[in-house]
């Protein structure tokens, strides 16, 4: 799809989320719910003693039955439908021909860990903090957006072998 058109579509989904729920979109929050739920299963007392995990556990509902987890489950299905329509389904490791699958996957894991950690410290990721934050003109949204993209640009030179 033309990227500007895809952007308008994404913007309308975001607007619908604000109009219906009063909040924007999110992704890292759902990952946090999965983590909190997992830790709670393994070590419930650890969760209640933790200053971080305990904030996200409610008495009545499981952390997996939350709005964001259902939303991200929708992302999974919506992405799959789009990929099926456009003929892009298939198991594959996407990488530059200059690097091995192994190297790509190691970097993907490290990058994921950094993003996961940063999204907790920064109270949201590209979706919840930067995109949704900018849509409501929040200072935090603009600052987080500039920090994410500025850093990625600044470091691009050092990781060029992985991509170009």
């Amino acid at each position, binding site marked *: *799809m033309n*990227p500007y058109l*895809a952007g*308008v579509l*994404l*913007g309308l989904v975001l*607007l619908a989320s604000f*109009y*219906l*729920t*009063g*909040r924007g*979109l999110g992704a890292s929050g759902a990952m946090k719910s999965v*983590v909190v739920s997992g830790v709670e299963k393994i070590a419930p007392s650890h969760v209640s003693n933790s200053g*971080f995990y305990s904030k996200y556990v409610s008495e009545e509902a499981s952390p997996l039955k939350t709005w964001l987890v*259902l*939303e991200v489950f*929708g*992302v999974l299905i*919506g*992405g799959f439908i*789009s990929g099926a329509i456009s003929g*892009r389904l*298939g198991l594959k*490791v*996407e990488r530059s021909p200059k690097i091995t699958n192994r190297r790509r*996957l190691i*970097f*993907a*894991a490290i*990058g*994921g*860990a*950094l993003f*996961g950690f*940063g*999204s907790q*410290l920064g*109270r949201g990721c*590209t979706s919840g903090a*930067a995109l*949704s934050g*900018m849509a*409501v*003109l*929040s*200072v*935090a949204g*603009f600052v*987080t*957006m500039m920090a*994410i993209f500025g*850093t990625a*640009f*600044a470091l*691009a030179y050092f990781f*060029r072998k*992985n*991509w*170009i």
Partner: protein
Amino acid sequence: MPLHISLEKTGFKIKDMGPIIPVFGISEELNLLIAFIIGLGFGFALEQAGFSSSRKLAGMFYGYDITVLKVFFTAAITAMLGLIFLNYLEMIDMGIIYVNQYYIQSAIVGGVIMGAGFIVGGFCPGTSVCAAAIGKIDAMVFIGGSLLGIIFFGETYSWWEELYNKNFIGSPKLSNTLNLKDGVLALLVVVMAVIMFWLGEKAEKRFNRDDIIKEI
């Protein structure tokens, strides 16, 4: 305003109807169904934008494919203008729309760490889910890494707690900080985005990599 006068005459009141769920309250099941449907649209739009490809996303930072810039800013502007119009038409109570809290240090440091994760891993959390959905194994590994990163933050929370809670200044809006009307700031963002689109499209030509574009 003419719009709701005429609608109110018909007995249908749309004034301050939104946001629907916080205003009216709905059942938990319906709320979760709405979450799923919004997610469907989100995932579909991300995948149609091409965000299920890490090499396309990374193209942003080497100039050969600036789809990220185009989609991200078009989406932010669409929602931003939509909210401004809904507010102007008094169809939404902006007082209960969530505005992100601003903790100066954690927003910046968190953003910097996320930026590093972006260039190292090639995804962000939303795009990794969308890419994993179509079978990208690198995206599945990225998600695994993200979960470990979140566990690490949770387990070492006491180390970061001070930084995490430092300099909380509420939920400021950039328009208020700059003493501009929301509409004027939105116009400035639109103008900046158009300039960036123009520069970005020039970059796409200059840093053109047909070999990569063909594969992604």
